[in-house]
């Protein structure tokens, strides 16, 4: 009895022993955290450039070699910047969907032809259709570095002022477009209200 009281006042009794459960609690917490991240794509990194403008100079046009495309070519409308290439198999899967939203939803899409060969790329657009308002020919991936592109396909949502608002890594389709569409429509509404 006497011993119990000294133990309690010294904080080394049952209350203290509870702390020994801490590693277990931490282990469970860790487990829950890892469990939650199962199935999420580790490649899906939030862009560091959200809120930043796209570069002033975009690069040469794919279809018109003489033309140098600039930020001002966005012409004051929100747009999707879609990174694609003929060597990218996922881009071929994505392509019909881009044509669909460009046609049916009047989404303005700007292509970034990434690490590609000009004749092949032009041929691709001729064969499969061209959903792009215009396409930047980014042969060396320089624009890609400025935008933080890691591969293709990748899509950026840019507002009327040319500021990056969202980034999507991977294919745009029925499943992935709705999240981006919501933001896109918001930007359109912002422009209309001005």
């Amino acid at each position, binding site marked *: 009895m006497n*011993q119990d009281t000294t*133990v309690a006042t*010294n*904080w*080394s009794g049952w209350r*203290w022993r509870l*702390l*020994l459960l*801490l590693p277990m609690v*931490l282990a469970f917490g860790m487990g829950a955290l890892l469990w939650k991240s199962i199935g999420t794509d*580790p*490649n899906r*990194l*939030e*862009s*560091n*450039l959200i809120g930043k403008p796209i570069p002033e100079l975009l690069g040469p046009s794919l279809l018109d070699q003489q033309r140098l495309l600039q930020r001002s070519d966005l012409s004051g409308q929100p747009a999707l910047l879609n990174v694609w290439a003929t060597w990218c198999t996922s881009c071929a899967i994505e392509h019909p969907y881009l044509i669909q939203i460009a046609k049916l939803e009047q989404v303005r899409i700007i292509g970034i032809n990434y*690490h590609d060969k000009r004749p092949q790329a032009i041929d691709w657009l001729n064969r499969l259709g061209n959903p792009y308002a215009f396409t930047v020919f980014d042969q*060396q*991936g320089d624009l*890609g*570095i*400025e*935008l*933080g*592109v*890691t*591969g293709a396909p990748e899509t950026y949502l840019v507002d009327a002022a040319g500021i990056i608002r969202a980034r999507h890594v991977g294919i745009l389709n029925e499943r992935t477009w709705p999240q981006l569409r919501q933001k896109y429509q918001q930007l359109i509404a912002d422009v209309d209200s001005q």
Partner: protein
Amino acid sequence: MNLHCCNTHWLQQALIALSLMMCGMIQQALAAELSSDVLMEKRFADLSEQLRCPKCQNQSLADSDAIISRDLRRQLRELLQQGYSNAEVKQYMAARYGNFILYDPPVERATLVLWFAPLLLILLGAVILYRVSRSHHRTSQTEHTKVDTLNQAEAKRLANLLVSQDSKVIQVTDDA
């Protein structure tokens, strides 16, 4: 003739001396250029080890053969040639690809837990260990004092027990 001969001799010597001198100068200039190249290469190699390929998670820029890594290595070389310092290069990369690209993320509010949680856990462990060992020590001590302070009745009983034990032992030896 003789004079002529001596003249050419002198000219030859002068030319040899001059070319030797120039050799030395060229060599010196070459060495300087080479060493700055070597230095640049060293920085390039170090930085491409310290930056992570943004596409491939577990590889550095140096290890990876992804398109993006090749682009970034080319860009890295260009930045170094433009005179960027190592810190500026990292800043440039992190501005575009986030802290993900740095194997050593900077100490910021968002990364405080990352940096200091291990230290805190070790400290916590040490405190727990200390407390537990001290409480063990104390309980074993109290048990000792308990044994030391037998009351008279207990002492007597113990003595009796010990005596009977002894006699038993004696009995056993007798039997043998």
